[in-house]
């Protein structure tokens, strides 16, 4: 339960970090909060020869709330984003999801960008990035590029980042006025990996649903977004066909069985959670529509 030996690099800038990555190739790994990486190292499921510890890089710890986005730097800890009032006001879904990320002690150290770069389908924040149609800001030796969330996640623990690139920040897109969100997950114990989780966004005008979508935790290989506007659009927010939405969710997801839950149970769970979060988001969208004209 101790990591294998590695060479520790402590760059002071993003440029320095990616130049080390370029040198060491696939044997290098970025270390930010380490709350996913260090368990893997301790269990020797991975043993990279080089760790590029970015904790001393300056300028990566900012949360910026813009008119369209909430931008989160690579060293922003989950707890910092969770408590950020500006980010909560702009995009309540962030806090709604973040309080479900492991336990406070993990959130104090783990970073939101790190959990996205880790690309675990059981992680909450990858699901939030796709539901908000977010963007990953990748930096490599040749400069920076933007990767749309849906292109970023390529498989379990696999991303579109090249060996010599790091995720320097992510941008969560803010929803259109009249939109409300909700998040729920079910785990064997509070703070454990969820057996299933669902994030929902519902937009309403005058009590009628105009758009609805959902994304998922632990029941798809990569984070995906299910557009439910066809299923729920045009219906009253207090009397929409939630069962049809739950059915669409059950048909969309591809849960797998493990020692914690069968695939069928996860499917049932995701459908039920979807019913609840969609209804909750719709109710809130109907209530908040008057105050979202800013």
């Amino acid at each position, binding site marked *: 339960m101790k990591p294998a*030996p590695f060479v520790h690099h402590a760059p002071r800038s993003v440029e320095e970090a990616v130049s080390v990555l370029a040198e060491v190739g696939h044997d290098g790994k970025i270390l930010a909060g*380490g709350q996913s990486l*260090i368990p893997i190292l301790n269990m020797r499921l991975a043993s990279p020869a080089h760790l590029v510890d970015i904790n001393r890089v300056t300028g990566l710890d900012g949360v910026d709330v813009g008119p369209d986005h909430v931008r989160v730097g690579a060293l922003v800890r989950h707890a910092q984003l969770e408590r950020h009032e500006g980010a909560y006001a702009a995009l309540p879904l962030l806090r709604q999801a973040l309080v479900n990320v492991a336990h406070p002690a993990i959130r104090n150290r783990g970073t939101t960008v790190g959990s996205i770069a880790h690309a675990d389908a059981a992680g909450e924040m990858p699901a939030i990035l796709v539901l908000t149609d977010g963007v990953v800001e990748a930096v490599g030796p040749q400069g920076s590029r933007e990767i749309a969330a849906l292109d970023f996640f390529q498989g379990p623990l696999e991303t579109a980042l090249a060996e010599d690139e790091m995720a320097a920040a992510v941008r969560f897109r803010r929803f259109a006025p009249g939109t409300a969100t909700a998040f729920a997950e079910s785990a064997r114990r509070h703070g454990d990996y969820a057996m299933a989780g669902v994030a929902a966004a519902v937009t309403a005008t005058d009590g009628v649903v105009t758009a609805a979508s959902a994304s998922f935790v632990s029941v798809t290989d990569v984070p995906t977004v299910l557009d439910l506007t066809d299923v729920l659009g045009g219906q009253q927010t207090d009397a929409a066909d939630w069962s049809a939405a739950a059915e669409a969710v059950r048909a969309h997801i591809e849960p797998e069985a493990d020692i914690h839950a069968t695939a069928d149970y996860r499917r049932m769970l995701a459908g039920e959670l979807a019913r609840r979060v969609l209804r909750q988001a719709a109710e809130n969208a109907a209530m908040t529509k008057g105050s979202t004209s800013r």
Partner: protein
Amino acid sequence: MSDVTTDQTTEQLHDVTVHVNGVPRSASVPARRLLSDFLRHDLALTGTHVGCEHGVCGACTVLVDGQPMRSCLMFAVTAQDHQVTTVEGLCDAPDARPCATGERMNPVQQAFAECHGLQCGFCTPGFLTTITAYLDEVPSPSEAEAREAISGNLCRCTGYQNIVKSVLRAAEIRTERQGDADPAARHTGSEDGQGTVA
């Protein structure tokens, strides 16, 4: 055997200084030294316990710059120059008071003693650090909040009932002590400290 020797001698060592319980402590360690092992093996501060070594059990929780974190999920090299408080440092808190044995206990330690919040004691250091930081944030939690606050720490003995009681009792003791002057503080610099807020 010779391979192992070679590995150990070729692994690069880093001079790491961490401010532990207010004192700068240094050791020369390989990059892979976990903060938990740095505290226990290199600094001989064995109050921090190591359970699962993958962040689940919470026994190794220490305060890094005042915030609870898993010392098994952090490298000593990353903790360079940061402030770490271990269970050994809790008795130096301003609201720690001498107990019957003459040793000092902070409100959480006192509450665990009063409420029988521990049995074997293995998980206790992680609970004490976690709850100490939590009460700084939420000074008078409800029972439900107390349960939530300790949800990241595993105890296999108590069934948690007495730990929840301890959290609530610790909040009371903490409040009681806020108005009180520390009797031990009279011996050191009492003139300047008189009348300041707790």
